[in-house]
Each structure stands twice: as structure tokens, then as C-alpha cells.
């Protein structure tokens, strides 16, 4: 079946909020996520909301020398839309899972036991969080100033207050707390990030790649289904102006028990027949700590690996059907199977996400294997046109299950909740069973949000969003 070339309209970058299509970059390494609760009539809240809009950063490219000191982006929960006066009917046009909220869907996401919503941080998952302000700054002083301005604007109007503020900052070397380089592998979006196509796009025949339709990530544009639709219909989106140039956002605070991870890997690594703890950890993740893919370099990291280089991510699982190079259940193989599910990547291509998370909390000192009680982890942020298909569609069948990979009850060893088989098979001539799986990552809370386009934000502020 031939796929007609897409008639991809140009992305309206000045109407799309920034950081969705292209990351701001590692220089913006001071971040705050401020969840605001509205506790006043919608008209009053809209006064405050309108005051934000001049400062919201768009996706319009920065000319040299015009890089802002700080950036601001705004997203809303279903409750937030209502609190700002958006009608019930219009809120009803948003997706089912967004309106239900993450806490209600915790069962699907594997957020049970220690990760259950009852144990979440105060303010998250209760319906109290209405508006999320994300502030990024290049320097600490600008960060503080931006926060100060945010607080002042709220005090001036009254009736709105920050109920949860999560600060985050890049760790040295753009690593996350388990020590792995993170964030550089992103989908190739047609018309926005075609430079990432080799490795970030859809794997096609003869080693070729193609970018994904923009509508997979921003609403109001054709998505991958539109490509195969004779009538070229657009994917479901909220009604009216809200449905254009916006996208859904997933925000999750994931606590990482670094000490537990180190102890577990060290103990198992001592028994691993093919190498040491470092190699075992790489097999679990699917990358070495510097980001070198295990699929291309199963024995050790590539000294010349450069995560920023265009072809850095250009690999497929191809002939590695038995997982002897990169284990079948490795984290990155689960979260983006590429061609590993067969059928020319057709079963994977609709489940890609843009990820923009940041680590939070101080690093655990090198070599420490006892927990120091500090709060540390990853703020996971993703953007996608469909939370159900792209976020939940990875979390439930690929991270928290092994069936589709032929792995039975095995869950992602790094991330999955331990209430499964509790093991990971490292395939090889001498297969190694890594056990026991423990709660290395615990969900501290999260929200499903919508990040509207600029015109949509203005319509909400004017009470004209329907």
C-alpha cells in the first residue's frame, strides 16, 4: 500500500508555545514548575491570566542575540479550564483521559503501592492544580527574578496562589540521577526537527528514515492517520480556537532511589557473567551512561559518541530478534521499539512522545550506596497529540508489561513497578536473570495538562474560548 506524500502545512510557530517543537536548550538549566490554584471567580482569574500572556514564549525562532534570559510557558488542567470560565461543553470536547486526570487513571499507569495517588505529594492529582507555569532561566539570578515577578503578579490580582512549586536543574553532563545521558533522543517532526530524522523518525526500507507528521505532536495538523485517510481528516482536537496549535502535556514527578539502584546493580553485576556492574546497567537501560546505544556497541561505550551529532541515534534493532545485543526488555527498547515489533515499524510510529523533563534534587555523591533522605529524581514532561495513544500507549503495554516483546510479566526493570515477575532476562548464550526488581522509581505525583496555542490563550483570557 503506497502512502501519499503528506501535504504538510507550514507550522504556525508564532502561535505554538515554545519548548514543544524544539527544546530551549541546555543553557536554560534553571527551571521551576509552578502549579497555580484558582480560588476566585473566573473573571478575576482571567485578569491575572491575561497579564501572563505578553511574557509567554512562542516557538518562533530566536534571531542571533535575541535569546531571552527567561522563558515562560502556560498549561492547564481540565479543572483549570473550568476555573477560567471555559464552558462545560467546550471542556467536554477535550480528550476523555485528559478530563479524567492522571490520578483517576493511576491503575493503568502502574501507579500502585508506593506510587499510588493516595501517597502523592500534596496538591498533585487532587483537582486543585489548575494552571502550570513553567519558567526556564539561563542564570540563577534571572530565575529568582522571574519567580518574584510571578508571585507579585498573583498577589496583585489575588485569588490565585501557587500550591506546588517544583524546581529542577540540569545535572552535570546533562545526565539524570542514575548517571545516564538523557533527553537527546527525540522524534523527528516534519517541518520542525527534520534534522533528527536519522534515528528519530520512522524507520523505512533500505536504511531510510522519514520524519513524523506534525499532527502527532501539535493539534490542528495532519497526523500519521491523516496520511492514510483519503479525506485527509485531522485528528480529534478540542473545539474551536483551543484545538489549533496546542498539545497535550504529561507532567510526572518521579522520585529516584539512587542508592537502591546502585546497590542492586553492584550486587547483580558481581554475578553477571559477561561483564561488570556498568555493563549490566547499560544492558538494563539500552544505552551506556554516555548515551552510546547498546545495540550498536554491546561491549563498551563508543569513545567518539556525540549525542548531539545528527546520526547519533541512527540505529535499528533489525537482526537482533533474540535480544543478545540489546536485551528485549531494555528501557529504551521498550519506550521506543523502532523496528523491533516488525511490520516496518507500523506498530511503533503512533506512540512517539516529545520529552522535555529535567532532573530535580541534589546528586547523590559518587560511590554512595546509602540513601541520604534527599528528594531527588526526574520531572518527566512529555508533549503529544493523544495522551492515551502516545503516553499511556507506551506506559501500559510497553513499560509495565512484557507481552508484546515476548517477555510475559516482565516490566521495565528501571522504571516499571515491581509487582510483576520481578525479573529481567539479559539474553545471551548464558542468559542472566536480573532480580529482584525493586521500586527504583516512585511516582510522587502528576497531572494531565493542555498547552494551548497563543490565540487560544488569548481567547481563554478574554472569556471567548467557548
Amino acid at each position: 500500500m503506497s502512502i501519499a506524500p503528506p501535504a504538510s502545512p507550514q507550522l504556525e510557530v508564532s502561535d505554538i508555545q515554545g519548548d514543544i517543537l524544539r527544546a530551549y536548550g541546555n543553557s536554560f538549566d534553571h527551571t521551576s514548575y509552578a502549579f497555580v490554584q484558582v480560588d476566585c471567580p473566573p473573571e478575576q482569574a482571567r485578569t491575572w491570566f491575561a497579564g501572563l500572556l505578553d511574557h509567554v514564549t512562542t516557538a518562533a525562532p530566536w534571531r542571533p542575540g535575541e535569546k531571552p534570559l527567561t522563558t515562560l510557558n502556560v498549561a492547564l488542567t481540565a479543572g483549570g479550564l473550568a476555573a477560567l470560565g471555559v464552558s462545560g461543553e467546550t471542556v467536554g470536547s477535550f480528550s476523555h483521559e485528559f478530563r479524567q486526570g492522571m490520578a483517576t487513571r493511576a491503575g493503568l499507569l502502574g501507579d500502585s503501592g508506593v506510587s499510588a495517588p493516595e501517597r502523592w505529594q500534596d496538591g498533585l492529582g487532587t483537582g486543585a492544580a489548575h494552571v502550570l507555569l513553567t519558567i526556564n532561566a539561563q542564570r540563577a539570578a534571572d530565575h529568582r527574578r522571574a519567580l518574584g515577578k510571578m508571585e507579585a503578579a498573583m498577589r496583585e490580582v489575588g485569588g490565585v496562589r501557587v500550591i506546588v512549586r517544583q524546581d529542577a536543574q540540569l545535572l552535570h553532563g546533562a545526565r539524570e540521577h542514575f548517571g545516564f545521558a538523557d533527553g537527546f533522543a527525540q522524534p523527528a517532526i516534519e517541518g520542525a526537527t527534520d534534522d533528527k530524522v536519522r534515528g528519530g523518525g520512522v524507520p523505512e526500507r533500505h536504511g531510510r528514515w522519514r520524519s513524523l507528521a506534525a499532527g502527532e505532536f501539535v493539534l490542528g495538523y495532519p497526523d500519521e492517520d491523516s496520511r492514510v485517510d483519503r479525506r485527509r481528516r485531522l485528528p480529534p482536537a478540542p473545539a474551536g480556537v483551543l484545538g489549533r496549535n496546542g498539545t497535550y502535556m504529561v507532567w510526572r514527578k518521579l522520585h529516584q532511589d539512587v542508592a537502591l539502584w546502585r546497590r542492586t546493580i553492584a550486587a547483580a553485576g558481581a554475578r553477571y557473567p559477561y561483564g561488570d556492574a556498568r555493563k549490566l546497567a547499560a544492558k538494563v537501560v539500552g544505552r551506556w551512561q554516555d548515551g552510546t546505544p547498546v545495540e550498536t556497541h554491546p561491549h563498551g561505550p563508543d569513545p567518539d559518541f556525540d549525542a548531539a551529532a545528527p546520526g547519533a541515534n541512527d540505529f535499528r534493532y533489525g537482526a537482533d530478534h533474540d535480544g543478545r545485543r540489546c536485551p528485549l526488555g531494555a528501557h529504551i527498547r521498550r519506550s521506543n521499539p523502532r523496528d523491533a515489533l516488525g511490520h516496518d515499524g507500523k506498530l511503533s510510529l503512533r506512540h512517539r512522545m516529545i520529552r522535555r523533563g529535567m532532573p530535580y534534587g541534589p546528586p547523590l555523591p559518587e560511590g554512595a550506596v546509602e540513601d541520604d533522605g534527599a528528594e531527588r529524581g526526574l520531572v518527566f514532561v512529555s508533549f503529544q497529540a493523544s495522551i492515551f495513544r502516545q503516553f499511556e500507549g507506551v506506559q501500559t503495554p510497553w513499560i509495565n508489561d512484557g507481552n508484546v516483546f515476548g517477555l510475559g510479566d516482565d516490566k521495565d526493570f528501571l522504571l516499571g513497578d515491581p509487582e510483576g515477575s520481578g525479573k529481567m532476562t539479559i539474553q545471551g548464550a548464558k542468559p542472566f536473570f536480573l532480580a529482584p526488581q525493586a521500586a527504583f522509581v516512585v511516582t510522587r505525583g502528576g497531572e494531565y495538562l493542555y498547552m494551548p496555542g497563543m490565540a487560544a490563550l488569548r481567547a481563554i483570557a478574554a472569556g471567548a474560548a467557548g
Partner: protein
Amino acid sequence: MSLPAVSPDAPPRNVHGRTTSITLLTTQKPWGRFWMPFMFASARAAPRVLAAMDGLSFISFASWTLIRELPYNGPPQQVRRLRHAHLFFEVSFNGSWAQYIDSSVRVLTTGMYTFWGSSRRFPGPLPAGPFQAFFKAHEIDCSHYHCAYPDATVTIVRSAIELERRLEMFAHRAANIPSDAFEDAWEAFLEDAQEYL
């Protein structure tokens, strides 16, 4: 023009453990009453037709039936030969309702035309959205659904069956080889069996 949204979750009574049921009744176009029996016979004669579906390994049981009339049990049942032929479809599979449809339409596109082509208002398998809506419009919900091994997926069951066969063979061998040969035999067994564990 954009597609309407379809709620992605299955009603809870259609689910038992990790197994989900779908039950569907669709009205046939007139040619369906010849096409469907022909397709059934073809599928029986050449089971490879279902190889793609089988390969996806998430459907445990499925059946298709063309219904023209229902048995009569006397009053107050109304004696009626149905006006149209109807296709009855039932399936048990692993995973979520919407993920099932999303995967099926992309990979089983030809099969979708084969089985649904004669159903009225069939929108074609792609894009997935209208096909999901088609399913929703014709779906009947269970009042009670039971699975004898609700948490075992198709892949696990297949692995377990294959593993049992190999384990029996190995256990038999192991009891009959000298004790110092066990270690090598165990490693060879494990290397072969790892994909089923």
C-alpha cells in the same frame, strides 16, 4: 475537518484480568450473505490467511458467524426471519480495546476488508478513528465475562506450552546423565529456553 474523539477505555465488565472481550453485530450488505460464507470456507481451507493475526499474538479466541435467523421457541417469541443478514463477531484478546484496534488496522489492513467489507457503514480500516467509532456503534457489552487464566497473555500461554515440552525432555535427560554432565546440559537448556521464561 477533524475526526470525533472515541473514548479509549473498555467497559469494565468486558475485561477479566489482562483479557478483554469484544462482541459485535453488524448488518450485512446484500452480497454479504454470499461473501461471508465464502470467506469462512477460504479461511478454513487456507489458515495462512490468518497468519498475520496469529503473528500479532494477542488474540486468544475469535469467531465470526453469519446470522440469518434465530431458533424459534414458541410464543411470546416473535417468529421472524431477519430482514438482513448480520455478522456476529466475538474475540478475546490481551491489551486495551483501543490499542487492539489501532494495531489491527495498521497490520491487518487486508484482513479488515475481508471480514468487515460487507458490513454496512464500514468506513475502511484506516484511519483508525472512524474504525474505532464503527466498532463502538456495533458493540454489545458483556454482563459477565470469565477467563480461566485471566492474567496469562497469549504470549505467556504459548511460551508456557513450548517450555513444558522442552522441560519434560530436559528433565528426562537430566535424570539419566552422569552428574558432572548436568552443568553443561543445564546451560544448553537455558540458552534454548530463555525466550520462553
